Structures are given as structure tokens and as C-alpha cells.
């Protein structure tokens, strides 16, 4: 894509270079805390207790990472995150695809009204419903369970909205041809519509997975038992013992370990995530 700011005059180029340098300085500032974190994670705890300027000196060590690998607790948290995020993603994909298709392509009574109501759900912030949800789940004994952690995220209207947009883009005649081909609505959905929306599924799936993985407030209040913590909450609980027991180095290594899955997903699927976020317009 050609640049919009590169006009045909040298002054414009000069201004651009200035902007770019500023951005460059900013990116160094962006990276500094992460570099600091990495530095801390490769130092022994005892050294750091004497002063963090140990980061600038040798020796460096991977002992903190070894300790993580031996820590069943962190792995337990990791496993929980995988199950909850994975389950929530699958649930969202199924529900949103069905509903998105229904709203976008099928006709049934009250369709427009229902869709508008669902869109209102997009504007609802978490706090308006979280207390009531917590009470409900207490009633049904759903706390501290995988189902309990997965369910609230499946009510997100964003998935329905995204899938509906995507389904709308498919030409109507394809449905009509399939109707004349004697296909039931379910068969049209399964054999024709779904395969045509695979990129949207991928995008929505990754987006949902990341969101579920990073969710804070709900797992905080619903998973009160240590063995049901997701990785996000587990890191938070370790933080409260900040200055003392675990040691700075180990803590830092935990943070690095916890960011790895997310960053790997990000690197692999950068394009999809950016598409989801910017509505497909950014190259």
C-alpha cells in the first residue's frame, strides 16, 4: 500500500522522518519494562534481594525457569486456562455461527427486533451484570468449575455481530440455489455457509481465545480455590506475596512464562487479530 504521507515534496519527507524518529524513541520506552522483566527473570533470587541493580551484572541463570517447570501449581493454572479458554472459544464459535447465520440469512418472526436487542448487549459493561451472575452461579453451585468459568463469556454479542456481518457478505443467490436444490436449512448451513466463513471463524476464535485467557474479574470471584485458578489469576495471587517469599526472579520468570502462550498466539496470528480489531481494513 503506498504511503499517504509521502507526497512529492521534500518537506513532507522531512516531517515524516521526524515522526518516525519520535516513534522510534517511544518504542524503546515501550520495550524497556519488558527488557527489565527479562533481566530480572534470569537472575538468582538471592542476588536480587540484595538489590536489583544485580540485573546489570553477570552471572545470569535459568534457575527460575527450571523451578517453574517443577512447579505443578503453575502448570495446573496453565492447564485450567487452556481448558477454560478453549471451551469458551468453542462455545462462542458454535453459538455465534448459528445465531449469526439465523439473523443474517433466515427469515422468522421478530427477527429484526431480536437482533436489535442482541446488539444492545454489545453496549453492556461487565459490572452491570456481574454481581447478579455471581449470585446465580452460587445458587446453582457452579463456582470453582470449568463450566462456571466458561459460561459467562459465551453470552458475548460481539461474536454474533461479527458472524452476522460475515454471513451477510455471501451472495443471497447461493442460499436460493441451495433451496432449489432441496437442501434443508441445516444442510445449507453445514455444507455451504460454514465452509465459506472459515476465515471469520478463525478470527473470532483467536479473538475469543485471547479474551478468555486474559479474563480477570470473573475468574477472580468465581474460582476461589487455588487449584481452579486460571493462569491469569494465579499470577495475580503470586503478586500479593511480592517482596517476600517467592522471590523477584522467580516471579519475573512466572510472568515471562505466562506471557509466552499469548505472545506465540499473537505472533502466529497477528494478521487475524489485527483484522478482527480493525474490521479488516489495516494492511
Amino acid at each position, binding site marked *: 500500500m503506498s504511503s499517504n*504521507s509521502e*507526497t512529492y515534496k521534500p518537506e513532507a519527507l522531512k516531517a515524516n522522518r521526524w515522526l518516525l524518529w519520535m516513534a522510534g524513541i517511544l518504542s524503546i520506552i515501550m520495550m524497556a519494562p519488558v527488557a527489565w522483566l527479562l533481566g530480572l527473570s534470569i537472575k538468582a533470587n538471592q542476588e536480587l534481594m540484595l538489590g536489583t541493580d544485580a540485573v546489570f551484572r553477570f552471572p545470569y541463570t535459568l534457575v527460575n525457569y527450571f523451578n517453574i517447570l517443577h512447579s505443578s501449581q503453575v502448570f495446573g493454572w496453565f492447564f485450567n486456562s487452556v481448558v477454560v479458554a478453549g471451551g469458551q472459544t468453542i462455545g462462542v464459535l458454535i453459538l455465534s455461527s448459528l445465531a449469526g447465520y*439465523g439473523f443474517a440469512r*433466515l427469515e422468522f418472526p421478530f427477527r429484526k427486533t431480536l437482533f436489535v436487542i442482541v446488539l444492545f448487549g454489545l453496549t453492556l459493561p461487565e459490572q452491570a451484570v456481574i*454481581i447478579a451472575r455471581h449470585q446465580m452461579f452460587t445458587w446453582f453451585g457452579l463456582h470453582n468449575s470449568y463450566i462456571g468459568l466458561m459460561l459467562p463469556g459465551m*453470552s458475548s454479542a460481539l461474536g454474533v455481530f461479527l458472524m452476522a456481518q460475515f454471513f451477510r457478505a455471501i451472495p443471497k443467490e447461493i442460499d436460493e440455489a441451495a433451496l432449489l436444490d432441496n437442501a434443508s*436449512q441445516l444442510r445449507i448451513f453445514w455444507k455451504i455457509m460454514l465452509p465459506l466463513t472459515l476465515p471469520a471463524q478463525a478470527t473470532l476464535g483467536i479473538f475469543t481465545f485471547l479474551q478468555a*485467557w486474559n479474563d480477570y474479574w470473573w475468574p477472580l470471584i468465581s474460582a476461589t480455590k487455588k487449584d481452579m485458578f486460571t493462569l491469569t489469576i494465579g499470577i495475580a495471587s503470586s503478586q500479593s506475596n511480592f517482596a517476600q517469599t517467592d522471590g523477584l526472579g522467580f516471579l519475573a520468570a512466572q510472568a515471562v512464562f505466562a506471557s509466552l502462550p499469548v505472545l506465540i498466539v499473537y505472533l502466529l496470528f497477528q494478521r487475524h487479530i489485527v483484522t478482527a480489531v480493525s474490521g479488516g481494513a489495516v494492511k
Partner: protein
Amino acid sequence: MAEHYRRSQARNGLFVLPYLIVFVALLVFPLGWGIWLSLHKVDLFGPGRFIGMTNYWRVFADPIFLQALRNTIIFVAVSVPVLVGLGLFLALALNRTTRTTSFMRGLFFSSSVLSVTIVTLIWRFVFIPGDGLLAQVSRYFGWETINFLSTSGWSLFSVGVTTVWWCLGLPMMLFLAALQQIPNDLYEAAALDNANPWRVLTRITLPSIARTIMLVTIIQIVMQFQLFGQAQLMTNGGPNGTSRPLVMYIYEVGFLRWDIGKGAAASQILFLIILCAAMAQYLVSTRKSGDAA
């Protein structure tokens, strides 16, 4: 006389039924019940009697709530312009497809995929009193080392810095998308019209993305009003509640003290505030663009 075949059939509604069940059970019902709870005296042992708006008055009369309200408003008023401004700046600077700009864009957006707990951990390491990255840097330059997280004025500021670092990616991406929608012809016509870069920016670029600016601002207002994790984990709302945001107040009232009715009332108040703020921003923007047109 037999029935005509109709394309609109109730049976087609079955596709949206599974989602609607979840939607009603987990969004509509809790919303309604939350409001109901806010009008009752509720505690651990179950809902009590109907007390009307009492919970709401209790919230408004609570000095901690008012302090949290003030904190949150200040926070939003400062962080949103910074996020929108920086995001716009980065989008303008990086609106090219070179290796460097691609790398930088990926860098600035990568912080957004981390969870709040990791982000706060990273920044707590930076802010460690006397030992964090900032302390090391201050000592190097011979400056006074400030205890960012436990000093009244600075605690909210630190939370703000962390938040900007975390949330910068999204505005940047949205602005990039908008900038790339501007047709090249406009810039070419401006070049023929002898426009200098500043004029191009203010008279062509910015007006073309005016809607996106409004959109991003509204999104950020809504997001930052819901500030929670960073404040709770980094400063625990302190010192003396000077960095406690509204959501944290709701959390403490509803889930630590189990004063559920009051918590529900506070959350409805917050919902309304967010709605009003977003609407106000929308009206201001549309009125402005209406005048300009």
C-alpha cells in the same frame, strides 16, 4: 384452501435459539436481577426486604464512593486524551509498509494481548521503591527517587502510565485502518494545491478520520471508566483510597464486604455514568461535525 409456502417460518428461529437462551440467562436476566437486588437489603443469607432507593442513597453518601468517583473521572479525563492522541500520533508516523514500521506496529500492539496481571507485574517491577527500573534510572541521573505507588499524587499517575502502555495498541490500529481508507487522490490534489504538511494534516487527514476519532474516544471512555485490575494489583487503591476506581469500589462492597444490595446499586450507577459519558461524547462530536458541514 391450503397454506401458501412462506419463506419466513418460525422454525428458522431455531438457529438463534441456543444463543438467545444463553443471552437471556446470562445478560438479560442478571441485568434485571441486578437492578432488583439494588432495591433490596441483601446479604449472605439471602435477599431481604424491599428498601427502594435506600442503597443508592447509601452509595451517594459514602465518602469512599465519592472519592472513587473523583479518581475515576480524573483518570478518564487524563488517560483518554493521551491514548487517543498517542494512538493517532503513532498511526500517522507508522502509516507505511516498511520493515521498520511493520515491526514497530507489531510492537506497540503486542502489549494489548497480555493479561492485566502480567502487565501490572511488569510495571510493579519498574516501580519498586528504591529498586525498580525507575529507581535505577533516577539514581543514575542523580534524581530523587519517588515512591510512585505509595505516594498520594503519584499512585493514580502510575496506574495511568501502566494503562497507556497496555492499551495503546487498539487506538493505533483503529486509526491506521481509518487512515488507509483515505483515497490517495486527496493527497495528490493537495500537492497540486501547494499545501504544506501541516495543512494537509489539519485540513485533509484529520477531517477525513473525524468519525473514527469520535469512535475511538468513545470506546476508550467506556473502557477506562471500567478501570479495575491495574489499580487493585498495583496500589490496592491506595494510599488512602487516592487511586481507587469505581469498579474497585463495587468489588470491595459487593465481594469483600458482601453488601450485595449496595454493590448492585453502585454498579448500576456506574453503568449509567458510562452511558451518559459515551452519549455526551457522541453528541459533542456530531454537533461539531454538523457545524463544520
